[in-house]
């Protein structure tokens, strides 16, 4: 029995020794960079990797640094709050004071810098509706158009800003336009508008739905976000008449050529979302360039010292 207990403790020690041997000196420069990334389904990852000029990595794990850590948005935020040697990226709307947001090419991620195009690490939020004549009834069609007008209005822009993204249009207050949409003067509580598409847009889309409902006859809304690919698929593509059909689909990337079959008027960009590289609050680094970020994600820089000195 004693022998077996000794054996057990031996195995434990061996297992401990098998850990990736990265001795951490007291100096930050000698810390190994812990690289965090979203998984390949993520629109944030696509935007980030394209933005830093490492498009190969947008949907391909095998070109990334060995030992990278996949996590969802929330896990990356939590990790950066604790992991002093970590680096990750999130959408600007998620940034809070528990982590440190880095400048990109020397420019801070602010609403002004996103709109005047000096902050380049960003991705578009776009929408696609069903084509004219492909609605169950005219009320649904009118409500869909009203929703798009609402999103483009000052009210829509405020909702988008309140959810952390930067709206691309402000066509005036909704109160001044609502008369163009007589459908909003009816009681629409028996109608349900269905929204889908990108899950990175989900928070903003839900906020827009919630704000639109009282502004347009208490129409019911349903947000079911599964991925940018479904924006086209479920409004104009193969699943448009299936059980998961949507009136409006959101995408967190510009639509691909294959998705542009419908008329131009059915597509619109509603916002920009800045993507921000984030690190632990105690990290002395303030900003990184596209090249530095690429080298970190490729694995050419493995220590924080590489980033600071090179």
């Amino acid at each position, binding site marked *: *029995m*004693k022998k077996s*207990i000794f054996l057990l403790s031996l195995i434990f020690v061996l297992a401990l020794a098998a850990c990736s041997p990265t001795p951490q000196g007291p100096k930050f420069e000698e810390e190994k960079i812990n690289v965090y990334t979203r998984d390949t389904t993520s629109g944030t990852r696509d935007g980030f990797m394209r933005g830093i000029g490492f498009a190969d990595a947008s949907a391909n794990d095998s070109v990334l640094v060995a030992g990278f850590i996949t996590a*969802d*948005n*929330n*896990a990356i*935020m*939590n990790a950066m709050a604790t992991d002093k040697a970590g680096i990750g990226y999130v959408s600007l709307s*998620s940034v*809070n004071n528990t982590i440190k947001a880095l400048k990109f090419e020397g420019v801070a991620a602010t609403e002004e810098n996103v709109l005047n195009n000096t902050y380049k690490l960003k991705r578009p939020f776009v929408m696609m509706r069903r084509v004219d004549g492909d609605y169950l009834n005219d009320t649904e069609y009118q409500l869909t158009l009203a929703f798009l007008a609402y999103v483009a209005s*000052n*009210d829509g822009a*405020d*909702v988008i*800003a*309140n*959810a*952390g993204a930067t709206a691309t249009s402000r066509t005036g*207050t909704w*109160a001044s336009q609502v008369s163009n949409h007589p459908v*909003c*003067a*009816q*009681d*629409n509580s028996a109608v349900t508008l269905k929204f889908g598409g990108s899950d990175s847009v989900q928070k903003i889309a839900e906020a827009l739905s*919630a*704000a639109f*409902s*009282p*502004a347009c*006859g*208490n129409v019911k809304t349903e947000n*079911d976000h599964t991925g940018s690919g479904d924006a086209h698929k479920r409004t104009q593509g193969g699943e448009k008449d299936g*059980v*998961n059909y949507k009136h409006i689909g959101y995408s967190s990337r510009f639509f691909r050529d294959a998705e542009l079959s419908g008329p131009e008027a059915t597509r619109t960009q509603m916002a920009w979302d800045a993507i921000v590289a984030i690190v632990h609050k105690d990290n002395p680094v303030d900003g990184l360039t596209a090249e530095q970020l690429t080298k970190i994600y490729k694995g050419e820089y493995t220590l924080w010292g590489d980033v600071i000195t090179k």
Partner: protein
Amino acid sequence: MNNRKIKFSEIFLNGSVFLSTFLSVLALGLIFFYVISRGTDLISWELFTGNYHARNYIAEFADLEEKTYTMPDFSGDEEVYIVSRYGIALKQDFDLAGNGVIKVHYVHPQSPFNQMYSKEVGSDVVDLDAGMIFQRISYIDHPTSLSRNGAERFASELNDPQREVFEIFFSDLGGGIRGSIITTLYLIFMTLIIAVPFGVLTAIFFNEFSSNNWMTKLMRNFIETLTGVPSIIYGLLGITVFVPLTIRLTPAVNSNLIAGALTLSVIILPTIIRTTEESLRVVPDDHRAASLALGANKTQTTFKVVLPQALPGILTATFLGIGRIIGESAALIFVLGAAVKDRINIYEPSTSLAVHIWSMMTDEPANIALSSTIALLILAIVLIINVSVKLSVYLLSKKGL
């Protein structure tokens, strides 16, 4: 020398026994301590009865005469900001889901916020109550105040005499778990309705009607194998078999609670069959023989003589099944998804309490406070179930004696 060696090994072995026991007890202690310490803050009646999705309102002031308000003293409260111009106080706070919000802390009885015109179709007046959430306030010719910028700035902008309020956007609290509680109850009810009769009748077949041949042995083995199948595999069963089946047979067009209940039924079926069989087996054969001798047939004997005596066992099985239903997460995530709903319909997907935790833990930011509160609720139910099983077994065994 040898003696000392023995003594040393005695101490070592005894020590390891005590240490292990201590660790096991510590584990339970840690879990309870953690869940209670993180989960009790949020417990409130509103949490259990409230909607998860907040209802939004749009309104404008009815009349706007300048008044002065005598406000209560809030200097002792942290992060409370007074808007003396309109007689309200705002607080930087968190909603039930743990997100930062601007909560209405106080509304003066004469405040214009107390009597506003609703801008919604079909309703005319609406008033702001303490506990509600400000989304944003728009002004004529001034940028809108956003809740994102925090209560302090929101209050100071609202106080600015240059700004004339145009529209007020607010909502009730949201973040409640009523929908998930109802879903859990639905699931328990539907699953038991399917699984208990099914399981009990199957157990009766094995114990009363079947002869012990290779076929029943094989069938028993098949059912016993079900207990070893991990719940995530049941999830795959649900989406490949039960979801398409229910879409075909019911008005459902997507994953739905009936498919969830069917999946859960398969999960708890082996437990119900085994427990019922065990309690059928202890019914003395004399009782069967006596009933048969009196001219009753097998069916009558089984249902009128044997089954009533097995009721305590069936009850225990039911309780164990309820525990399993409440705790199940992986299978239901597959079959029903993880989108929290307020209006529950058995033909649509919604989340049970356990899946609500999963949804909160994978949300951004991870909502540990609300998750712990739901976990506390689940632990309490599981505890009650355990105690009642023990109690019923104890009472019935006493009665039996």
